[in-house]
């Protein structure tokens, strides 16, 4: 199966790669200098971690609920739990519920230890073919 993230320009910009275990995706954002938001700490820009989480959710929903169009975010909430170190980040998403039109997704991003996430995401995506 082709990697959906490779077709998304912004996912390529962030350098995202993914591996699948069954239908579960693990997405990696390899560390790069241009992801740094705070050069003093240094720390990753929260936005880059949020984008990783959102794209992980998009890829996971698209894998389980393939449609002609990509799932479109309705809303996303990101909690920043720890500062992102200048290291690779990994993320995984779980679909809590998928209805006819909307899917609710939870995702988490971590660095060294999966049990110590640096950020979590909760989001709704529109998965119907038609617009809002």
């Amino acid at each position: 199966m082709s990697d959906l993230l490779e077709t998304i320009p912004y996912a390529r910009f962030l350098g995202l790669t993914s591996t699948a275990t069954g239908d579960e995706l693990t997405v990696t954002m390899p560390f790069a200098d241009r992801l740094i938001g705070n050069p003093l700490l240094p720390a990753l820009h929260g936005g880059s971690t949020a984008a990783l989480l959102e794209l992980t959710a998009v890829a996971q929903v698209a894998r389980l609920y393939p449609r002609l169009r990509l799932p479109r975010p309705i809303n996303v909430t990101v909690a920043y739990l720890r500062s992102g170190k200048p290291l690779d980040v990994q993320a995984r998403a779980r679909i809590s519920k998928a209805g006819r039109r909307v899917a609710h997704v939870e995702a988490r991003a971590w660095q060294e230890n999966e049990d110590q996430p640096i950020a979590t995401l909760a989001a709704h995506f529109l998965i119907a073919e038609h617009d809002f």
Partner: protein
Amino acid sequence: MTASPLVDLLPQLASGAAHTHALGFAFDSLTGDRVRIRAPWREELVGDPDTGVLAGGLVTTLLDHAGGLAVWVALDRFEPIATLDLRVDYMRAARPRADLIAEARCYRLTRSIAFVRAWAFEDHPDDPVAAAQAAYMLDSSQGRPVGANLRTRQGDEA
């Protein structure tokens, strides 16, 4: 008009970090407590190759960053802050191949937390692509009175 040192820093704070520089963020304007930054449209920032619309994650980053600037504007100085959480509602698709502007306003400061609202749009905040509500952790060692940014406003009790 007296410009504080913080105001002179805003262009640097908008685009100075490696990530914001790579994304092409640029300071746009400051009107009262409302700060605007711009993300120029670029092919590599697109989220759906079928539509040419900027990625949701890019919009989130723009809103997060504009919110941080609004916090520094409210503090009238630069100090370390960290986004605690951020909620973004996507109200409609952005226009393909169009720049996005984010406007943010810090509407409450406490000793530890800054509360921010922000909007992303192409032309006017009344027609937003996305709206955000966010909270930022402040550097609590600074010893700031609660509601320090609201003292001069009538009807606003800290």
